[in-house]
């Protein structure tokens, strides 16, 4: 979607929404792409889900952490387990280690999502391969409040792909995985497939990408979008 249209669509939706957490979220303007990326606030987000189909599958957990410019504030780190309907498919439980028992201790999505939205207001969403996160969050918002999620999003995978393409470095699909990229930038490896760990990894990856692209003359937020 066009970056310029985004702000216009935010205002349009704001007028059409009744009072709800999604409306509160939309009150804050999106950060302008022309701003210096170091003056912008971000939220790195990762989801664990029961599958890849946003219409059928459910969110199992959400992890997020806020960034102020090029600094990650660990005091904003959050991890929420979501209570799901029905049983968790065994094949997905193998990956994220969230079993029915664990999920039963979770909270309702309608409780967790407003928390995330409150942090996301006025900030840019960072995710690795952001399409999945955006689809699931949009589906969830639509279910809860009748409208999808409008957000300014920065995809660390897209940033990485563009960089490789621009430098004409050949790469495989697996080179673009979160953990392969973290290794490339000398970042610590956290236990994989935990929503907060992956959100933190994505946040660190963004810091690394920004540090390597910033030649000292400053960069605009738009350069990463």
């Amino acid at each position, binding site marked *: 979607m066009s970056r310029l249209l985004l702000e216009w669509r935010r205002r349009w939706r704001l007028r059409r929404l009744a009072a709800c957490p999604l409306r509160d979220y939309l009150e804050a303007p999106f950060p302008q792409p022309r701003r210096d990326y170091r003056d912008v606030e971000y939220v790195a987000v990762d989801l664990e889900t029961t599958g890849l189909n946003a219409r059928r599958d459910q969110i199992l957990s959400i*992890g997020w952490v806020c960034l102020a410019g*090029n*600094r*990650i*504030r*660990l*005091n904003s*780190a*959050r*991890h929420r387990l979501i209570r799901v309907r029905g049983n968790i498919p065994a094949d997905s439980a193998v990956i994220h280690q969230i079993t029915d028992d664990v999920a039963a201790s979770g909270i309702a999505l309608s409780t967790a999502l407003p928390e995330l939205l409150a942090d996301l207001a006025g900030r840019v969403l960072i995710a690795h391969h952001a399409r999945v996160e955006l689809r699931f969050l949009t589906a969830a918002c639509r279910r809860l409040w009748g409208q999808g999620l409008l957000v300014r999003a920065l995809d660390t995978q897209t940033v990485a792909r563009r960089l490789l393409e621009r430098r004409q470095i050949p790469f495989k699909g697996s080179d673009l995985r979160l953990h392969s990229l973290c290794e490339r*930038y*000398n*970042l*610590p490896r*956290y*236990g994989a497939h*935990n*929503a*907060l*760990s992956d959100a933190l990894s994505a*946040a*660190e990856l963004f*810091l*690394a990408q920004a*540090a*390597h692209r910033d030649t000292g003359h400053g960069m605009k937020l738009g350069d990463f979008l």
Partner: protein
Amino acid sequence: MDVELIEIREFLAGNAPFDRLPDEVLDRLPQRLTVRYLRRGTPFPPGDDDRPYLYILRRGAVELRDADGNLISKLAEGDLCPSPCGDGAPSMGGLRGQTTEDTLAYLLPCEELDRLRAAHVEFAAHFDASVSERLRTALDAMTHDAAGTALMTVQVRDLLNRALVHGGPDISIRDAARIMSEARVSSLVLTEAGRLVGMITDRDLRNRCLAAGVSPQEPVRRIMTEHLHTVRDDTLGFEALITMSRLNVHHLPVLDDNGVRGVLSTSDLVRVQSANAVYLVGDIRKARSLETLASISGRLTELQIQLVHSGATASQIGQAITAVTDAITTRLLELAEAELGAPPVPYCWMAGGSQARREQSSYSDQDNALLIADHLKPEDDDYFKALARRVNDGLDACGYIYCPGEVMASNDKWRQPLKIWTKYFNTWIKRPEPMALMLSSVFFDLRPIHDPEGLFGELAERIHTMSKKETIYIAYMAANALKHRPPIGFFRNFVLIRGGEHNQTFDIKHRGIVPIVDLARVYALSAGLDEINTVERLRAAGAARALSSDGAANLVDAYEFIGTLRMRHQAEQLKRGEMADNFLSPEELSPLERGHLKDAFALINKMQESLGQRYQAGRFA
């Protein structure tokens, strides 16, 4: 807290000084942190922080240089960077830093650091440089963490696997043999009224009874060994093993407060430890050719590796390896005598340096000398020259390379009668000169290896008398002991070798171990002590008040810690099939070990300074 920050919590928990914080404080600590990423080549500290922070390196490296661009220190994962936090925390003090790798750092606000220091004494102590405790804990951790700690931690009482089998000294040899046979044991302890009077072994029955034609009806007293080495029941298995290798015995009676408790045999030890200096020594004594000796000595590397893995300290490894070197030396002398015939006059083969101190690692170079009885005739020297040549060549073939300084018995200067040796020492003690200082580490650490006629005692006595009257040479030696300084900068950072083959390392032997060995020698000589081993010298010097008992204990710990790191470094190299060396990179160490090594170096520095003041060593340097 969110349990998922557990990985950051665990990282902190593994690094000094955060390892000293209670669990619940550690749980909340990650939330107080900010994360920053500094690309390689970024100035450090970056200068755009909103308030003062302590930087904790999670990944990457930072180099600190002084105003002239000299590398002062390289910080790596787990290190605390100099900060503006002040009050004992490391500070930049005019240095300039730069990241030399892509670096991820955790930032703790200085006011949080202050809060932690105020609330947690143990944590604060890290900044107050309570060196001694930190070292001791580190040493304990290192020896206890090692794999297969068996012999290091087990006491011999737990190795005794059967009830004591014993008899009276007046039973017949046949009855003794019957008791042993029925109990299926290879040794029998002989007691009288609960008191240990002797012991016989299978071998004694064979050698002293059957082969010697002694009647089995005779009392066992006739063939028993009377003067026995014993160990207490709380002795560590490892110490018992060393005692056995040194004495070349296979059985040791174990005593407790009530008398004999049992007999420890080598097979008891082998059950817990397969690498075994005792067996190497046994094989050496049976070896009939140089080739066999050389192939046995090839197993020394294996011995060092196994000892390191079983958690032995540097002292213990040094004792075990030196026991093997002593045995090889003795065996080479026996083989040489078998070829050249009996010596025309008595002689003593003396070892100097690390062999004398029982501090060898596998493949030290050789330092030795020959002391000959005064009544030798000029023509007799041909014999001793040939003898010395054979043993020096033999040691070289066994991997103990020729001494670079030519301190070997085959060198005419170091193959002399007692009266000449007395003259040498008289000169070194009364008119110290630089040459004597160079030799001091060899000849003031001297131990007889093969001395059937007891010549060494006379020389030792004369040295003792001469040195008691003189103190000037000690001042010279004190100055000499300050030559090798630990590789630590003025605020606890490693000073590394720059460029060349050993880039980014430091020489742990010359800058960590030699300084302590030199200090111990000065303390021992100044107090007129006979000990040669560095740990024994320090302990005795502490007891004799030549230095404070705290100072002695701390130096022992520092020596063991540094030495054990060195042994481990070498064992890793040997395991990879490389030559062992002394060049250690800080990156080989865990963050905790790096911290403790810095403590040890700081301690050496302090002790050197106080020694320097006492002898005003600058006057003699």
